[in-house]
């Protein structure tokens, strides 16, 4: 029984990623998309925090949103899987419920 959590805002701008990491149960999955992809990038103020959370949670990031923002999929934090919209649908189906952190 695990849940998919989605975060669509930059951790620099909003507190949604932080709240998600605080309240997502161990073993859950987190998908970063829209401006949320910023939280998946290496060498930011938040990278270390996300890396640490990877011991409890599986992370995914939406590739099309990375590309739109001129960022490189090569600079995604190691261990975060880059996915497309088809995978987003699969992730939703594979988990028991979806919580959007808005």
């Amino acid at each position, binding site marked *: 029984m*695990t*849940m998919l959590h989605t975060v669509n805002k930059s951790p620099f701008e909003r507190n949604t990623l932080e*709240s998600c990491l605080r*309240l*997502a*149960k161990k073993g859950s999955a987190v998908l970063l998309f829209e401006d949320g992809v910023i939280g998946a990038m290496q060498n930011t103020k938040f990278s270390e925090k996300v890396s640490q959370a990877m011991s409890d949670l599986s992370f995914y990031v939406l590739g099309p949103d990375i590309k739109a923002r001129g960022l490189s999929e090569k600079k995604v934090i190691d261990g975060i899987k880059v996915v497309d919209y088809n995978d987003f649908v699969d992730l939703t189906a594979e988990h*028991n419920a979806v919580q*959007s*952190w808005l």
Partner: protein
Amino acid sequence: METAEGVVKKFCYMNRKAPYGTIYALESLEVVLIAAAFDQDISLVFADDGVYQLTKDQDTDGIGMKNFSKTYSALGDYDINKIYVEKESLEERGLSVDDLQALTYEDEDDDWAEKNSLFVVGREELTALIDEQDVVLSF
């Protein structure tokens, strides 16, 4: 309701924003009041700035907006009696449960005794509670 047909799902209404600055608190309450007519298992969660939605003594006269805070105390009449407030969110804001409205319901299985419906829960308990939901609606 015609759509329920015996299916009972756990619905969680997750409220994380302060009232009045945006409409999400009010429109969340509108959903909850409608949801009460369906025979589903309803929990309301107030975390982060959502805890401000439940403060006592809201007075909107000065900002020209409708004060909807009284509606929370009517939730008990709609059989909505599982209302959770995150303890740590209160603490980070210098608030305690005494700053919030008292929310109660009358228990029909216990001779209509008036009982508390607002529960302050710690982070771990809240995490477990969210994880067992079938549907989470975020506001």
